[in-house]
């Protein structure tokens, strides 16, 4: 069975708005597809929950409608607009008339005047200088100017070169003098420095030798003392060794003596028995 109802069919089935044939088809499909049935049941449950929303009680207020309302021509908004514009224009015209306003536009000039006073025309100024004259004046003034500038410039240049050469000569002299004094000073300083360096070195050497001689003396003295002590110790130890040797020899001699005595005693005490045995 390939029939699969769409969402529209399912929702119509839920609200019972399907035809009997369609409803049976959907019913069969839902029986075959328990998952879809479960889904639809959950929507049905949601629908039932929604039914818990209560209606609000409300009293209808009286609504009065005046259908016979006729808008007169005077009340018409278009009429009002046109009238207001006309009134404004009229007001401006009357005000203009009363104030004697005159508005002129001539040769790119807008002139607004009140009280009807005519403006006095400004007198034309006659030109006293021609164009050629002006040109000549400019050229002559330019020529004068150029002359003045060139003379000034050459004078300035001369002065400048003179002052530069003078300054250079002065400076070179100063530098030479400075160099000379600097070289003299440096020779004397070097000599003094070398002499002082020699003195210092001499002193240093003297001190060093003095110090080292005293140290060596101390060291040899210490060495001699140590050596004599060592010899003393050696002799003492040798003496001790000799003493112990002597004592040990004494002991041995005593022991030998005793043994000999014992042997002699034993020989003396048993000659008779031995002789008797030998005789038999």
């Amino acid at each position, binding site marked *: 069975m390939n029939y699969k109802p769409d969402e529209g069919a399912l*929702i119509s089935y839920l609200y019972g708005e399907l035809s009997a044939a369609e409803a049976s088809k959907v019913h069969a499909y839902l029986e075959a597809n328990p998952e879809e049935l479960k889904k639809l049941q959950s*929507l049905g449950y949601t629908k039932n929950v929604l039914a*818990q929303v209560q209606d609000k009680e409300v009293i209808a207020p009286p*609504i009065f*409608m005046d259908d016979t309302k006729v808008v007169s021509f005077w009340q018409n908004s278009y009429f009002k607009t046109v009238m207001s514009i006309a009134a404004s224009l009229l007001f401006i015209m009357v005000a203009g008339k009363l104030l004697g306003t005159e508005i002129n536009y001539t040769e790119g000039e807008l002139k607004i005047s009140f009280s009807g006073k005519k403006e006095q025309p400004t007198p034309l100024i006659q030109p006293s200088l021609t164009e050629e004259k002006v040109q000549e004046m400019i050229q002559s003034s330019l020529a004068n100017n150029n002359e003045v500038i060139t003379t000034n410039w050459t004078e300035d240049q001369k002065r400048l070169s003179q002052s530069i050469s003078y300054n250079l000569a002065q400076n070179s002299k100063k530098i030479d003098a400075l160099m000379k004094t600097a070289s003299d000073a440096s020779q004397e300083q070097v000599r003094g420095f070398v002499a002082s360096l020699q003195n210092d070195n001499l002193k240093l050497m003297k001190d060093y030798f003095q110090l080292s001689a005293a140290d060596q003396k101390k060291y040899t003295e210490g060495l001699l003392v140590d050596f004599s002590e060592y010899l003393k110790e050696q002799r003492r130890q040798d003496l001790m060794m000799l003493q112990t040797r002597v004592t040990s020899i004494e002991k041995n001699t005593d022991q030998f003596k005793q043994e000999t005595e014992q042997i002699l005693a034993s020989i003396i005490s048993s000659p008779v028995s031995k002789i008797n045995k030998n005789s038999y």
Partner: protein
Amino acid sequence: MAETLLDIAMMHSDSLIARAREGDKNAQGKLVQLWYKRIYNFSYKFFFDHDLAMEVSQKTFISMHKNIARLQEVTRFKSWLYTIAVNYCREEARKKKNNRALSLDNMRPGESEESYRWEESHHRRENPERQLRHSELSDILQKCLMELSAEQREVVIMKEYEGLKFREIAETLNISENTVKSRMYYGLEGLKKILEEKKITKETIGYEL
């Protein structure tokens, strides 16, 4: 949803609509009385806001008065009226989006004995505690509805609470029936997830009720 006398009257109001269309002020007034609660509740569920719902309801019925003469088919009165309401709801939603001022009405009183929810209760003879719980649950579910997109919300409200057929909703919103069904399907699925997130199950509701 059990049908009340008002529902029955609404369903058999063709002659009333016909008379209203011909300019009968009395019939128009009766239509307002019949449909005001429905339009108010539709708007209330759309905004979860009493003031906005009142605003939309009044504008809807003013528009109905003005334009009912242009209604071509009496049978389409219901979807026509809801179209007006939906348009005003969308308009108010746009205004609300542009002007996010804090309404004093949003600052609801706490759940004390002075709470107006006691006053709201119309089932005075029922157990007050049970009624309060029902009202709380109703508000929670209303908040869940508000989490849906406006497109899905208007379809869910029209179908679930206003009882419009899919065809009528399609007519009202001027969209295809399949789009309506698709929005409804995904709206319900979205609500299912929201309820699961808020742990509103069969058991909890059973306990509450």
